[in-house]
């Protein structure tokens, strides 16, 4: 049933083995390349945008792709290319940061609950259930009202909204692993909780945890625009990609690039992240040479 790693991989692998010590998969590599490309765009956006993001450069709206405006214009007649390049900053940066925080916290807490069990488990689980039961819009509004709006607050809010989900999965996965003998072995060695979750549990649930990470990333990218519209975080004239889709949704009937292109940008990023996660480079254990 279980397939040996595809042979194409091995070929590539042998090439890299000497220097890198990692086995990389071409599909994962493509994913990584796209992520890196968007990251570079995010970092250099202010330098490469042809127009300022707020400037109205087209008398028309939802303009088509043209020689002057490569990706057409948006609903106000602003340059879409510039807006998307700048949008990469928010979508890539904020989403990655938020998903990293959400998943790290969620997974660590989930594993802790599973390994510790007892009342720690009960309390953690119920608290996070309660947190998850609060509608996220209400939560967002409260945050804006209570702490105001800034990028760090936005990132934290996104993370908090998605911690309970990550927690549930990690816990569900970890309780199963926790019943295995090898965890018992580590326990009677006197290992600390931290070691148990990091070294014994995590490697055995990594696959699903990463899949969850990938999904959560997508959710966060999408929720980001929702929160921006609540006034949390990204402020005009800047906009993340989700917000670009949202503000230009009126262009959908006309097939305007202003709504299609940011959607494609989101899809390219989220698909890449997921492909990369599905095909993470693996450290090569076998160090023997012939």
């Amino acid at each position, binding site marked *: 049933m279980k397939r040996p790693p595809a042979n194409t991989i091995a070929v590539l692998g042998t090439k890299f083995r000497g220097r890198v010590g990692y086995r990389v998969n071409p599909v994962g590599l493509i994913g990584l390349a796209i992520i890196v490309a968007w990251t570079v765009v995010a970092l250099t956006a202010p330098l490469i945008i042809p127009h*300022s993001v*707020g*400037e*109205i450069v087209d*008398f028309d*709206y*939802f303009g088509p792709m043209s020689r002057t405006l490569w990706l057409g214009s948006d*609903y*106000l*007649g602003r340059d879409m290319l510039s807006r998307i390049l700048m949008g990469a900053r928010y979508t890539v940066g904020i989403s990655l940061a938020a998903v990293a925080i959400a998943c790290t916290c969620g997974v660590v807490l989930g594993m802790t609950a599973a390994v510790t069990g007892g009342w720690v488990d009960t309390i953690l689980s119920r608290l996070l259930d309660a947190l998850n039961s609060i509608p996220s819009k209400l939560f967002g*509004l409260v945050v*804006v*009202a209570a702490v105001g*709006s800034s990028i760090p607050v936005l990132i934290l809010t996104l993370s908090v909204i998605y911690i309970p989900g990550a927690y549930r999965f990690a816990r569900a996965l970890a309780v199963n692993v926790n019943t295995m003998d090898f965890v018992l072995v580590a326990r009677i060695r006197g290992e600390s909780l931290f070691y148990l979750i990091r070294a014994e549990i995590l490697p055995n649930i990594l696959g699903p945890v990463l899949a969850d990470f990938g999904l959560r990333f997508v959710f966060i990218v999408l929720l980001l625009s929702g929160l*921006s*519209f*609540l*006034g949390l975080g990204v*402020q*005009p*004239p800047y906009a993340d990609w989700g917000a670009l889709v949202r503000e230009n*949704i*009126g*262009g*959908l*009937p*006309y097939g305007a690039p202003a709504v299609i292109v940011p959607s494609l940008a989101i899809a390219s990023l989220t698909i890449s992240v997921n492909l990369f996660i599905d095909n993470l480079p693996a450290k090569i254990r076998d160090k023997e040479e012939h």
Partner: protein
Amino acid sequence: GRATSALAATPKSGGALKAAGWSSSTADTLDPAKASLSTDYVRCCAFYNRLTIIDKDGVTHMELAESIESKDAQTWTVKLKTGVTFHDGKDLTADDVIFSLQRHLDKATGSKVAKIAAQMQSFKAVDKTTVEITLVAPNADLPTILAMHHFMIVQNGTTDFSKGIGTGAFKREVFEPGVRSVGLRNTSYFKDGPHVDSFEYFAISDDNARVNALLSGDIHLAATINPRSLRMFEGVDGFTLSKTTSGNYTNLNIRLDQGFGAKKEFVEGMKYLVNREQIVASALRGLGVVGNDQPISPANFFHNADLKPKAFDPDKAKFLFDKAGVLGETIPVIASEAANASVDMAMMIQAAGAEIGLKLDVQRVPSDGYWDNYWLKAPIHFGNINPRPTLDILFSLLYSSDAPWNESQYKSPKFDKMLLEARASLDQDKRRQLYAEMQVMVADEAGTIIPAYLSNVDATTSKLKGLEPSPLGGQMGYAFAENVWFDA
């Protein structure tokens, strides 16, 4: 097709009318005093009537009243039409009128027009169909004021308004707040009509969805079309657009009593930094009329046409900002979806500012709670003002020193004096002169920048006839239901 409005023809009877407004919520009400959304107005217009009504040319006519007269503009005599019955069969009487008007004075009612109603000092039922209203001070505009949607006449003693018992063209069949309402033709309506058998009204808050519902034939009228959706109707037959510019506007308010607004040059500079033509062209997609920083729209009889809008002049603005010493400072500007198109306007002003080194920090805040939390409070923010029937109301609401909604904290004793003088006068020419001068004062001295008056476009299937623009607002001043009919 983009024909503006159908020619009057003989109305036909029958058909089930379905129409969609753009917002509704659980706060939907059939209490005219509390009506706040356009959907509330539409429903109230369908179920109730007012004493007076304003026609498409802005002229006041009688509706439930036979006549309204006064010699001194302070004591008014209202004579009611006879033979008008409520949906439950009871006759309309003077007591109903007094109850309906007096309600607004009771704080517990939560009336939206409590402030305006407060000038009505006492009511007296002279006989079964005559009411005498005495005002605190003379006001020549009373008949026009009574045409406001909030002054719809309800039955004496009503406590449960969800039944919607009025004298209107439709009898309430269904009323689910935030969902929909259905009215059936009132067969004993005192006027002609209504023409349609039933009227279902609900809200589709998503702009595209509303247009799509119309295009797919699910509804017959879609109110308040987003300017960017107009293209959807290009090259499609069978739909009619109806445009109204009634004096609704979104404005930038700079409070003169605090922050940057305290510097006169800054406020003046901002007025030159606003590219009004561009706002109309890009943000409103042509659905607007360039404004000149005062609230009286060209649709109003007293509009001062000589007052030209300030030209977009970044250099002059820069000069003024330099003088005020604000260049290089970060100036927060609050905008919100709650104030129609304000975020777009803010971004356009921001972009213009960026060109000359003025750093405007546009903060988009949630529409939820905007009016309560930011409007009137933040040093620089946007507002959105609905049309009012009289100029006096607008000025006393927004610009007199004691105005409850003095958005820029504009205080001018001279202005206050002129306002009182105009109100009490029955001499139209004198009033016109005073009002013209006051418009200039507001445009030059107040901190409210009114770049444009917004137009409203409603779309209907071409089969629906009889919809005409009204200065009171879209959807025929919200009273379309009893006036429209289906043409085969």
